[in-house]
């Protein structure tokens, strides 16, 4: 069963290959252009720049919130992480509506100062700004966790050997953070390569936007060819990261639990530190949320399309809920297989299910369009297709969380139940599942959270007339109706709150 699930999730890639292979000449023609090379460089360049800036922003924030006596440390921890919940396309729309032409800032400046034009927000600078603001929390989460896990004994040992505080930091602390920095950089880089909404709204021609445009104009072969190329780029990124990580191994060698690291007093430096945190929170959280609230009030003052918003909310909840349920159900056998019967077959099944990490939503959605129109026309333009796409994309999250909780269940406990006369299925029902339940639930919550925000697959695969919150927001904001996108955006953030609370409450 786990194998079947693994095979099913590998289907989109297979179909992409078939489509490209079907008209190889034309596909090669698309790829063998200077324009394609420039596209690769542009996408990779954006990913690299965002990653560098996001990590540069996350490192000091992580240190300040994890290791110092920054006033209001706990509040800053939450506030600096919160921008994570804003999907990039909502973030991009809020930035454009605030800083773009005919935006709020220009309105503000037009009266007293007569400013007619602001420097253009579109293109590389805007995409860079937006993606950094909404991805740095990903890096912060990873680096902060690593920083608070550091073994204080190592630092004390270095100080004991006569190293100064700064040299200790450089020679002992930073090297230990390298794996976390690498992992967080990978997360950010993959996020940027995946991203469709922000680059599209900010009109930056990176891979996902060009693929979507090609698909929209009916040139399926070039869309498929470019999509395959993007998958290769992402695999290359994953491979490079894997190679770099393979050589590094940092962990506590001593047994027992480490003491929590000591707190560094900031002294007079706390003022610049506070200013820095405030600036980040202002730009990444206060400004977008403020703009969103402003547009929502404007919209409510007019006559928003309550019926449409209601339908979109219902559709989003149903579709994301189905994806969460299916992903959680599929994750259990795959995770069980990989934890209890490690072998070649189960390794392959698990690896295939991780395909989602290397596959952007645009790519999976396109592959399923090809698959649907040719192989199973019944399913094309059906809700099942969208749910399947989301399951392929987000199954790894469900597997990861289920696997982690299964690893906590000792096989001896299952054997004990067997010895007491219970059949394997009975043991799965009465022992394994209850013990892994929290992980399965967390996996479902995670999938729901990501699916409800997902844009490109919903855009391409949702049946005609089936609007979700994300497609409604996109429909309004991509053509500049900022007011109309505000209420659905607010609703989207609100429906994400309960599963997010569930996840963070569990983490504590």
């Amino acid at each position, binding site marked *: 069963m786990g194998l079947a699930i693994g095979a099913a999730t590998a289907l989109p890639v297979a179909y992409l290959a078939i489509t490209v292979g079907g008209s190889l000449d034309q596909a090669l023609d698309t790829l063998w252009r200077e324009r394609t090379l420039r596209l690769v460089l542009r996408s990779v360049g954006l990913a690299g720049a965002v990653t560098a800036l996001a990590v540069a922003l996350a490192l000091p924030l992580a240190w300040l919130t994890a290791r110092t006596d920054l006033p209001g440390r706990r509040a800053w921890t939450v506030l600096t992480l919160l921008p994570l919940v804003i999907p990039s396309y909502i973030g991009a729309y809020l930035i454009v509506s605030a800083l773009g032409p005919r935006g709020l800032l220009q309105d503000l400046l037009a009266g007293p100062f007569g400013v007619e034009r602001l420097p253009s927000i579109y293109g590389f600078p805007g995409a860079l700004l937006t993606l950094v603001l909404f991805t740095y929390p990903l890096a912060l989460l990873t680096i902060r966790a690593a920083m608070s896990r550091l073994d204080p004994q190592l630092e004390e040992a270095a100080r004991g050997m006569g190293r100064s505080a700064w040299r200790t930091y450089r020679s002992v602390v930073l090297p230990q953070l390298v794996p976390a920095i690498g992992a967080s950089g990978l997360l950010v880089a993959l996020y940027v390569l995946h991203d469709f909404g922000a680059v599209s709204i900010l009109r930056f021609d990176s891979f996902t936007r060009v693929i979507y445009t090609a698909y929209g104009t009916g040139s399926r072969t070039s869309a498929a060819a470019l999509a395959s190329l993007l998958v290769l780029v992402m695999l290359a990124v994953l491979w490079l990261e894997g190679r770099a990580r393979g050589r590094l191994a940092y962990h506590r060698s001593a047994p027992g639990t480490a003491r929590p690291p000591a707190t560094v007093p900031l002294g007079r430096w706390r003022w610049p530190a506070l200013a820095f945190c405030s600036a980040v929170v202002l730009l990444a959280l206060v400004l977008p949320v403020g703009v969103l609230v402003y547009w929502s009030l404007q919209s409510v003052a007019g006559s928003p399309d309550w019926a449409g918003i209601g339908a979109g909310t219902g559709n989003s909840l149903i579709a994301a809920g189905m994806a969460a349920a299916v992903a959680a159900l599929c994750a259990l056998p795959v995770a069980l297989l990989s934890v209890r019967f490690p072998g070649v077959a189960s390794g392959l099944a698990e690896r295939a299910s991780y395909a989602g990490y290397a596959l952007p939503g645009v790519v999976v959605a396109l592959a399923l369009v090809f698959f649907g129109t040719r192989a199973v026309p019944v399913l094309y333009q059906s809700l099942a297709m969208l749910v399947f796409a989301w399951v392929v994309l987000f199954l790894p999250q469900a597997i990861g969380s289920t696997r982690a909780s299964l690893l906590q269940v*000792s096989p*001896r*406990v299952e*054997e*004990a*139940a*067997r*010895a*007491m*006369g*219970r*059949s*394997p299925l009975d043991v799965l029902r*009465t*022992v394994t599942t*209850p*013990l892994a339940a929290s992980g399965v639930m967390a996996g479902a919550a995670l999938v729901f959270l990501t699916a409800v925000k997902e844009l490109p697959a919903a855009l391409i695969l949702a049946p005609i007339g089936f609007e979700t919150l994300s497609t409604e927001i996109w429909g309004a904001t991509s053509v500049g109706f900022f007011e109309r996108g505000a209420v659905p955006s607010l609703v989207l953030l609100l429906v994400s709150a309960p599963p997010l609370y569930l996840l963070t409450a569990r983490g504590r």
Partner: protein
Amino acid sequence: MSVIRSEGLAKSFHGKRAVAGVDLHVERGVVCALLGPSGCGKTTTLRLIAGFERPDAGRVLVGEKLVAGEGTFVPPERRRIGMVFQDYALFPHLTVESNVGYALGRSPDRTRVSEVLSLVGLERLAGRHPHELSGGEQQRVALARALAPTPEVILLDEPFSNLDAALRMRVRREMREILVEAGVTALFVTHDQEEALSLADRVAVMRDGRVEQEGTPEEVYGRPRTRWVADFLGDAEIVPGTAADGAVECELGRFPIPKELEGTVDVLVRPESVALGAGPAPGRDRSHEGVVVAREYYGHDQLVVVKLASGRRLRSRSMGFPIWHPGDRVRVWIEGPVNALAAEPAAAQATAISAADPGQ
């Protein structure tokens, strides 16, 4: 009647033989220890009997019923065995009562649950969860859970290794009483020879996937069949000697031996048979001159190393008095039974000594 019987039991993992032909018989109501160093295949043997592993060869009978081998494989849930795991494997999501009840099927008989809980003395803790119990209490819950469905046999995998030394002694005694009271046949795995000797009615000593010797604790300790068993079960001094006519002659003297051995033999002397005295031994025709070279003091007893005039070193275990000091001149003689083994080739002796390394 053998309640547990294995014949020619073999199992390999990734081409490495873990169990290589184990023959084992445990009679009804007997507590049997499967003793051996780590990696000797004792836990695998237990898991083969329980049904958690499938044998490559050989057969297993539980209660005279074939459960594995000859093309048959009865899954663990239909073997009527109780199992106690090294880490107890209690269900963390269930209370003590429900853990025990789980063993009794979908609708457990509550009177039986309280019956076994009172047998292990845990009625008051019925409503607790496993994480709210001490190690010793968890262990007793595991035992109660295994005993609840009145199984044919109980299998215990290193049942005391997770308890600290002080607790281990007490729990061992309690466990023995509970097992005897329940009248159950038990097979337990251990690497601790003291545990095996003190708790079991029979001891099967395992080495490299085979049972090297099986017998009562007194037999395996006092009359080991091989030098490896002698070394593994306790400190042993080996002195070369010559056997003839039911007696053995060596530099320590002439001793009667129980077995019919002839020719070159290894004479086995346990340190507690080596007696020390300030003057000549009373009523002994042969005692030897020696010098104390080292002493380890344990409080209730002491281990004294003496060097004989011949240069041979002997260990002597005696009570904590009289107190000897290095340099003391003493008389040394042998008191108690002496055993002899057919001499083994040098190579076998080398492996025997390394295998009996106490670090294992």
